[in-house]
């Protein structure tokens, strides 16, 4: 396990309530986009100001000194104060950041103050330095982002801030687990091509990265569920490939594990959009979960659901046999703050 390095853009923050939750760090792509939008806006404001002054001057005949002064002050404000003021007043967001759903927060998750907003934006001068030539904009900032875990540019490092991505989207929960595994093909299964969400959740838990069980033990645990699922889906195990039978025998010791992975990949990433839900879907998530499970439980009469009943009934046993898993039905919710 130790050779697996976790590359992740999430940062865990502990709230004063003692709960750990995670922020997603914004990468250079989104930040670059928001930077671009902000730059265009800044330039736009200066140009509009310039046009206004020149049209007014066109009426009166000559460019008034006060007009030129206003243009210069606007230019100054746009180049130095734009980011700071927006971030200070909009709780860490500029229009560009808002459009990309980004926000600047302190590394402990709390919102930034005025001085942090001001300082990190002044340091854009340093971050924006060209090192490799005119094409390599913001080189210093990019290098610094590449070198720090929270992808902080110098301005972020000095003022202890980070840019988080507030886009609420589910990364496919099976990412990583099912990599390199094929989906189940309909032709391989003769039964009803469906696996309930609850069973998927059980499979998912079996593969959760931090579970310290060996492959052999996992295969053992997987066997119960895998067998039941094979019956339910009426899955036809493909025989050895005559051209390369060796692969078959290499894979057989872990065939139940592989099968569960395939099930997980097939039914949780299905094109119905289970994996990439839109915002409205997420709001209904809780209802979704309940509806699925209650619907499954409400129809115990039809034969396939009976099998399902067996499966889900088997699930707690399965988890009980796994080390480090608390029993689901343990303990009432005591001490809930109301």
């Amino acid at each position: 396990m130790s050779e697996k390095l976790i590359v992740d853009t999430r940062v865990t923050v502990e709230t004063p309530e003692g709960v750990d939750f995670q922020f997603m760090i914004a990468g250079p792509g989104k930040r670059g986009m928001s930077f671009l939008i902000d730059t265009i806006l800044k330039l736009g404001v200066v140009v509009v100001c310039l046009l206004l002054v020149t049209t007014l001057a066109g009426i009166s005949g000559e460019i008034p000194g006060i007009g030129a002064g206003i243009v210069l002050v606007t230019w100054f404000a746009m180049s130095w104060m734009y980011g700071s003021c927006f971030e200070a007043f909009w709780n860490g967001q500029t229009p560009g950041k808002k459009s990309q759903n980004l926000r600047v927060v302190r590394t402990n998750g709390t919102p930034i103050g005025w001085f942090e907003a001001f300082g990190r934006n002044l340091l854009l001068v340093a971050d924006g330095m060209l090192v490799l030539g005119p094409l390599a904009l913001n080189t210093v900032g990019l290098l610094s982002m590449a070198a720090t875990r929270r992808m902080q540019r110098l301005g972020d490092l000095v003022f202890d801030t980070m840019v988080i991505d507030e886009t609420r989207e589910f990364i496919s929960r099976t990412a990583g687990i099912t990599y390199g595994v094929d989906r189940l093909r309909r032709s391989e299964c003769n039964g009803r091509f469906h696996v309930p969400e609850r069973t998927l959740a059980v499979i998912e838990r079996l593969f959760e990265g931090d579970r310290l069980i060996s492959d052999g033990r996992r295969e053992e645990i997987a066997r119960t569920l895998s067998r039941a699922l094979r019956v339910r889906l009426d899955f036809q195990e493909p025989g050895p490939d005559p051209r390369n039978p060796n692969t078959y025998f290499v894979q057989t010791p872990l065939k139940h594990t592989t099968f569960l992975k395939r099930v997980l990949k097939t039914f949780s990433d299905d094109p119905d959009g289970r994996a990439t839900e839109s915002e409205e879907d997420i709001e209904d998530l809780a209802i979704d979960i309940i509806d699925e499970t209650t619907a499954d439980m409400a129809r115990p009469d039809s034969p396939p659901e009976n099998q399902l009943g067996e499966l889900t009934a088997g699930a707690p046993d399965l988890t009980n046999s796994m080390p480090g898993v608390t029993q689901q039905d343990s303990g009432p919710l005591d001490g809930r703050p109301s």
Partner: protein
Amino acid sequence: MNRERFIRQRRNDWQQFETLLTGMKNRRLSRWSGHDITRLSGLYRSVCYDLSLVQSREWGARLEQYLNDLVAQGHNCLYRSPPRSLDTALKFLSQGFPQLLRARRHFFFVSLALFVVPFVISMVIAAIDPVMAERIIDRTHMEQAGENYSGDLYQNIDAKFAEERSFMTGFYVWNNVGIAFRCFALGVFFGVGTVITLLFNGIMLGAVTGYIINQGFADNFFSFAISHGSFELTAIVISGAAGLLLGWGMIHPGELSRRESLRVHGIDAIKLASGAGFMLVIAALIEGYFSPMALPHSVKYVVGTMLWALVFVYLVHGGRETTDAGTTIDSHRRRFSTAHSAENAE
């Protein structure tokens, strides 16, 4: 309590929390009603509890992520930086800034030396030998600078500036504050950028001044520059001090970790830089509107001297009567030592 019952029970609260959040997130703090705040914070705490429960019982990644998002949003909504008013800004400028500068005076003096020493040297050289000055600055620029302060033009300086005062003020804000901010920001490269900026500006200004003295326009020049020079030069030196402070945080973290040291020094540095920016805006107003006025030189010298005295009093005595807030690093140390002693007591 199994997962389904849990979800069924808590679902209403989650939805309530979410609708409440979307309603309140973008509203100003002063528009929040007391009832809403109580409800929001109560719900937030219970959602936190739900999250930790789901985390510990491992009730699925989707549910966990859903609650995680709720908590993250609630956290961003509830934990805000304290609202800053004009009052706090004024208090900072009148008290906090001079206090901080005094606490960090070593950096101010180093920055002062880095600016004044090259200034004096290049001024003396240029005053004695204008050919040397031309090596520093382009001849045409030099001559133009000389012309600006030659006797004839100076008589008309008010007429010449009258229509352009606002323009010049805008220019001074744009140019000078920009220089100061850049001087501060480049300090992040171990202070090197700041040192270069200070030396460069010192040499340039010194050369121009020396050349003008050499050409015999010293009186015109000094009477023009003395008033705004008070705020302007001091502020440039202060922004230099801010940059050096930033660089120092990188070079010498002392008893802190480098990360922590950067943070502590960074906040102090940006405070100094903000104060310098404020002083430069004042300087730009003086330079744009007062300095070019056609007044007798003696009046300008008197006003200029008074302004220097004002700056001195402001920086040396500002915020003296209140208890010294100290620098960020001091408060950090204090917090650390109290925490430490508390630990020891246990």
